[in-house]
């Protein structure tokens, strides 16, 4: 069992990770989701002892303290990292990469057995074992990287964005492979941007936002969490149903800028991603016309300290419009409040458990899914129409 307790990392003045705690047991896949720059890679680097910043906190593997140990010692304790950029030896052959993977003392005795197991898992590596890795495709290189890490006979495998640069098909294959690795009893800690696919194979997940771990839940729960979507596509994507009818009529002149919201409001919307307690508050610019009459704002949206009591006071049908109008009404006020509040955001942060209960109940996930699919179809039609009408990069097919 890998236990990371209250780890903080800073690069000079820049705090890349603050007080993060994560644990991974053997035989489970744990995924860490988060936007770019949220600190995901830093966390994995800190665990593996290759972080260049200043690290505090503790990393323990089966009770052995690994904090401040050199990277090669950490490998000996059974943690293998597949870093971003793969961490392979591009000028060596597949076979050599794998042999090097088994360099550590803990792996040597089992080298033959591990290799055999690996080749059953990835037959392609066996086929290509004499090939120089640099000449292989991105997906194959990723396979080598995972194979290399598995050769060190790890108890925990950590991977930094393994799907990076892979085509959707290869991604699918990769995640299937990871599942197979998990089934051999290895624990996997996965940092990913590809939320849907990684959640589909994961057991648990953490949401990392702006250097903090803001949420922990089962993978199934995270998969239907609108906050996860928002973390990737921003405010409006979480409510595609609403934006569909009004969004961008195809005839809109393209030089026209979107209704210029004031920057504070934009930032406010963007910041919804950072402030966990306000996850439900969506203030997308340009705001769509309310479908139903919005109830008057009961209190300013950004107040982060006490999470709103769920479901009961907020009928989900009007929730978004409600929040939109509130956000609009208070957007000017928000700036000053926020300026005053943001820096002090940390101390009153509610505990994880509180926050999970504060998650707004979005009802039946099947309904949501259906709505989302409808929306996607509409969007596809719209996009098609737009393409034929307004193809400004003339390709033969457009005419």
């Amino acid at each position, binding site marked *: 069992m890998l236990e990371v307790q209250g780890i903080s990392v800073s690069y000079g003045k820049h705090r890349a990770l603050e007080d993060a705690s994560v644990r991974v047991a053997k035989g489970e896949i744990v995924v860490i989701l988060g936007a770019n720059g949220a600190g995901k890679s830093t966390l994995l680097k800190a665990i593996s002892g290759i972080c260049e910043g200043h690290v505090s906190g503790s990393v323990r593997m089966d009770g052995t303290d690994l904090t401040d140990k050199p990277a*090669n010692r950490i490998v*000996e304790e059974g943690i*293998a990292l597949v870093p971003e950029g793969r961490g392979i*030896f591009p*000028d*060596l052959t597949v076979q050599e990469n794998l042999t090097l*993977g088994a*360099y550590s003392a803990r792996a040597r005795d089992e080298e033959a057995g591990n290799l055999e197991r690996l080749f059953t898992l990835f037959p392609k590596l066996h086929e290509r074992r004499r090939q120089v890795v640099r000449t292989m495709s991105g997906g194959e290189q990723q396979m080598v990287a995972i194979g*290399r*890490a598995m050769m060190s006979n790890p108890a925990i495998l950590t991977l930094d964005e393994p799907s990076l640069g892979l085509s959707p098909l290869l991604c699918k294959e990769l995640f299937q492979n990871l599942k197979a690795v998990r089934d051999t009893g290895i624990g996997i800690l996965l940092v990913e941007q590809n939320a849907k696919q990684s959640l589909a194979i994961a057991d648990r997940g953490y949401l990392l936002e702006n250097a903090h771990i803001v949420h922990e839940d089962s993978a199934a729960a995270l998969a239907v969490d609108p906050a996860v979507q928002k973390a990737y596509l921003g405010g409006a994507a979480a409510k595609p149903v609403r934006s569909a009818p009004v969004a961008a009529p195809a005839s809109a002149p393209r030089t026209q800028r979107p209704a210029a919201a004031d920057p504070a409001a934009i930032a406010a919307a963007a910041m919804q991603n950072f402030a966990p307690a306000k996850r439900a508050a969506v203030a997308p610019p340009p705001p769509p016309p309310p479908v139903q009459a919005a109830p008057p704002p009961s209190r300013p949206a950004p107040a982060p300290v006490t999470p709103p009591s769920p479901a009961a006071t907020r009928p989900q049908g009007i929730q978004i419009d409600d929040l939109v109008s509130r956000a609009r009404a208070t957007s000017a006020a928000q700036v000053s409040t926020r300026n005053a509040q943001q820096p002090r955001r940390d101390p009153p942060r509610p505990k994880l458990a509180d926050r999970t209960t504060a998650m707004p109940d979005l009802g039946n996930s099947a309904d949501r899914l259906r709505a989302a699919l409808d929306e996607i179809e509409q969007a596809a039609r719209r996009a098609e129409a737009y393409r034929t009408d307004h193809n400004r990069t003339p390709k033969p097919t457009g005419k």
Partner: protein
Amino acid sequence: MEILITGLVLGGTYALIAMGLNLQYGMARIMNLANGEVLVAGGFAAFWFYTAGQISPLLTVFIVAPLAFVANWLIYVIILRPLVKRAKSRGQLEVDSILTTFGLSFIAVGVMLAVFGGDYFSYSFLATPVQLFGDTYALNRILAFLSAVVICGALYLWLNHSRTGMSVRAIAVSPDSAKLVGIDVPRLSAIAFALGGAVTAVGGTLISSFLTLDASTGVLFTLKALIIVIMGGVGDVRGTIVAALMLGILETFVASVIDPGLTLAAAYALFVIILLFRPQGLFGRKTT
């Protein structure tokens, strides 16, 4: 034909020296400009053992190699490692290590001058002629060449087929990845550096059996070794051997056809051509 064989023979010994430097620069990432002094020291040892105790240079090799290994290991750990740790960037390490190894080379020259004096030294070992393809060659050169072939071959096998050799190559290819597979990079870098020094010193021992050396010729060998390593591609064993043979043949050609005084000029001309058209070396790959 004669030029070709003499050139190949000379190139073979160059390959050995350059291999030593390549281990130090390509693998341990230290540009060692005191490399030539290590070579001269190896030659001195051979000279001393031969004149004082009639010990064959071929035997001296077995004394020189472990001594040079230990000495270079100490140099790396005591003098160079602090620089590696202090360096914030590759560029800074390069400047620092160049200056430091210059200093070391001067110190080595100074010590050798103090111990042996400034004279040329040479001894006559197996200077008997042998017939080969109708021409005559000195036996000591042939022997030196054969020894170089054996050592280069052994090194090549070691690097490509042993576990430690492979991990040394791994450090050369990607030190960051090497850490992740559990390789103790600082320790292995020291070993690569020490081994490079030992190989160079052995090269010096062999060369001293047919070339005249003096305390300050080291820098010429450093230059030649550097040119070979860069021509062949840093960290590339095959390239080193090919480049060394090329240089050996070129030098022999220039020396016998134009003027023996122009060998370095010829080497430089070759070097410039390589720099202009293939700056990554014959076998090196462009870094992007």
